[in-house]
């Protein structure tokens, strides 16, 4: 049952990726202009050479089949704007950066979200609850680039006050470069998880077994960790899969403002510059990544809760 289910999901995943690749390919070619255009006009001879080099002189259908063939052999070609670099190298070098940032963001969102949600549930209706819920609304509604800019300004002030580099303003390489961008990146998820865990926690708090545990004299920290938290975490964990995918792919603004060499920047800039090969490489890569995460989440549902039946027909 399990194997059949996994295979079935993977097959649909492959079809999804193929569809993403095809739709992106034709949409991208339908946009006016092409990657070779620069602000200075080039001579017809130079243009012909470049078109031949990238195969743009061929009919679109032929370009599509060439691309599909290369993609199946795992080669996305050479970038138009970074002309000495292979798209595979760009993904290999820059995805780990985005992934590191994303994992740190998820960790912060998870710990912070559950903590804030628990506090809010514990003090339901009182000022800590209201404060947490206010911050949740703020974090969800203020756009990322505002928060990122603000966070950077706070670091500048902090460093000026301390008269030393407490936290780096931007850049990448050290552990300290991760914290603030990861927090900014994970803030939306943190806020969402706070609400989710607050609701779950409230449900758990009013359940019979908590009452029973209290009756047995269990209280305080022990009650919280052993009985309340464990059960309240379940809905949070099921939300993690989509959150991981969203965060590792959605870091463009944070990567730009904090000068982080992640893949998110390439993903967005390639579209602006109509860098065909990088658009295709990053889109297919992220598409496949998302599909894998979704399949993993489906499988983990079954592991976490056997009541969720694994049937091949489930959508």
């Amino acid at each position, binding site marked *: 049952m399990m194997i059949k289910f996994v295979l079935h999901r993977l097959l649909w995943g492959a079809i999804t990726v193929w569809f993403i690749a095809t739709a992106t390919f034709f949409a991208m070619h339908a946009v006016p202009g092409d990657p070779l255009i620069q602000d200075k006009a080039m001579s017809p001879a130079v243009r012909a*050479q470049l078109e031949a*080099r990238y195969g743009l002189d061929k009919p679109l259908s032929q370009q599509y089949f060439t691309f599909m063939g290369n993609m199946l052999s795992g080669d996305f070609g050479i970038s138009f704007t970074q002309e000495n670099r292979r798209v595979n190298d760009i993904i290999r070098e820059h995805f780990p950066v985005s992934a590191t940032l994303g994992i740190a963001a998820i*960790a912060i969102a998870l710990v912070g979200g559950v903590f804030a949600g628990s506090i809010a549930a514990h003090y339901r209706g009182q000022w800590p609850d209201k404060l947490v819920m206010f911050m949740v609304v703020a974090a969800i509604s203020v756009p990322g680039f505002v928060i990122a800019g603000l966070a950077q300004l706070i670091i500048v002030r902090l460093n000026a006050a301390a008269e030393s*580099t407490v936290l780096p303003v*931007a*850049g990448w390489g050290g552990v300290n470069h991760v914290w603030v961008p990861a927090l900014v990146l994970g803030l939306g998820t943190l806020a969402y998880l706070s609400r989710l865990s607050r609701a779950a926690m409230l449900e758990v708090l009013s359940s019979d077994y908590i009452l029973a545990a209290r009756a047995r004299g269990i209280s305080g920290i022990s009650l919280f960790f052993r009985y309340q938290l464990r059960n309240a975490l379940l809905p949070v964990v099921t939300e993690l899969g989509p959150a991981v995918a969203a965060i590792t792919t959605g870091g463009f603004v944070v990567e730009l403002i904090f000068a982080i*060499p992640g893949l998110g920047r390439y993903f967005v800039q390639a579209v602006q510059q109509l860098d065909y090969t990088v658009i295709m490489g990053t889109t297919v890569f992220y598409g496949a990544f998302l599909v894998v995460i979704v399949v993993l989440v489906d499988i983990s549902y079954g592991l976490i809760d056997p009541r969720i039946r694994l049937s091949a027909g489930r959508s």
Partner: protein
Amino acid sequence: MREAKGIVTGKIASAVMLIVFAVVGIFPGLPAQASAVDLESKSITLALATEPPTLHSARATDTIASFVISHMMEGLLRYGENGELVGGVAERWQIDENGARFWLRENATWSDGQAVTAQDFVFAWQYALRPETASQYAFIFYPIKGARAVNEGLAPPDSLGVRAVSRTELYVEFAQPCPYFLSLTAFMSYMPLRQDVVEHWGRRYAADADKMLYNGPFTLTKWVHGAHLTLEKNPHYWDKSSLRISRIDMPYITADPGAQFNLFRDGQIALANLDTGLLDEAVKRGYDIQHFHSGSLFFLEFNFRAGRITANRSFRKAIQYLLDPAVLVNKVIGLPGVLPAYSLFPVTVRGQRQAFRQEYPVRRLRQDLAVARQYLDQAKRELGLEVFPPLMLLAGDSPRAVQEAEYYQYLLKRGLGLDLRIDQQVFKQRIEKMRRGDFDIVVAAWGPDYDDIMTFADLFASWNDNNRGRYSHPEYDRLVRFAQNSASASQRFAAMAVLQDLVVDDVPILPTYENAMLYVQHPQLKGVRRSVFGGDPNFRDAWIEP
């Protein structure tokens, strides 16, 4: 069942906790950050706006690559401290209307210790012109005899009019007189290349720091793509004793001006360009705000393709008499250093002895609404129109471009009752629409490629592919041809003065402003040369003051 669920959840949670604590555990160990300037190690730290798309001197086109290449390579000549041309690899030279001769320094060497020879220049220039190199700057070699034919694949590369007379003597034959040829030799496309190394790496040449050879004051010692570049003093550079900066570190790559400014405020970088939004903040902080004229001209370009209203001279005259560039600059743009433009030639263009605009001041029109309306009525009669249909104004998508376009929209509506529809496009789509002629008026700009008046003058010649409006005027073409073939500087500039007047009279374009770059710089950093020519900014002659 419940218990099993709890265990799995607990495991995931504790795994996550473990990762967090592992990372948090390292937190107290703060690495010492490099600072903006370091007197002791003579090093400076900068931020780059983007990763250089390529560092291959024969193929690079953008300003970031030009900046890096100008530090790691040296041409026959280079720009000195005050923007004057001085000897680079060449120690002497002669130029006349037929050609130029260069004598190379005996002690100019590559970063592997071998001598830079005349043959390295011959190879580099032939290489850049080969059709298969597909260099977008190939046209910059066209003053050399045979260059166009080589580039178009009509003649073999060795037919190019440049030859190594000896190991240290280079002779260049011109296609037509080229009084500005010396400044071309400081341009990045003219840098030498060593055949054995270029051929060894093939298409991977200059893809990484260890896949190229250097002959300039610095070598690239670190290039982490998209993240970090470092230039260090080249121990083989012939003039290394005159360098007062040993290391230029660039650990930040971000195109966000706000992020660059924050890094500057934090003392992490020595130089930051400012945009409109940051100007007030920089003033408030009491920074010394500096600027330089980037030499680029902004203008409204009209479409002259058949059937376009903008092809009518009276119509263009009406807009010319309506639009006051001084009001645009003072009220809309509002940046110090930006100048209202009245001429095709910015104030930075050189004349025979001093600035061209000092030698030949441009004829100034007084903006006059009544005259503008008269011209519009005349245009109506000439075109046989009752009312004008809405016109399409093609513009960029930067905040400044939007503001500017909205100003034109307001101005034309209020002054002449004309409707402008703003077609806002991102960069590539805007260029594509310009190329196709899909506009009535476009907000355009042009930056000089080389230090001569011709970089602006030939722009609206009927044969120029960058003439996006397809303006075609026999007198304009004649004046450009005359200047291109004239060996006499005085006749050449006199012709350009006539051309300048023709642009005011016939309005192929309407100049609006001459741009300036605003920036803040670390107070201890001195001698940084800012100019569009020869790589900007340039730290070749910079130093750190104690």
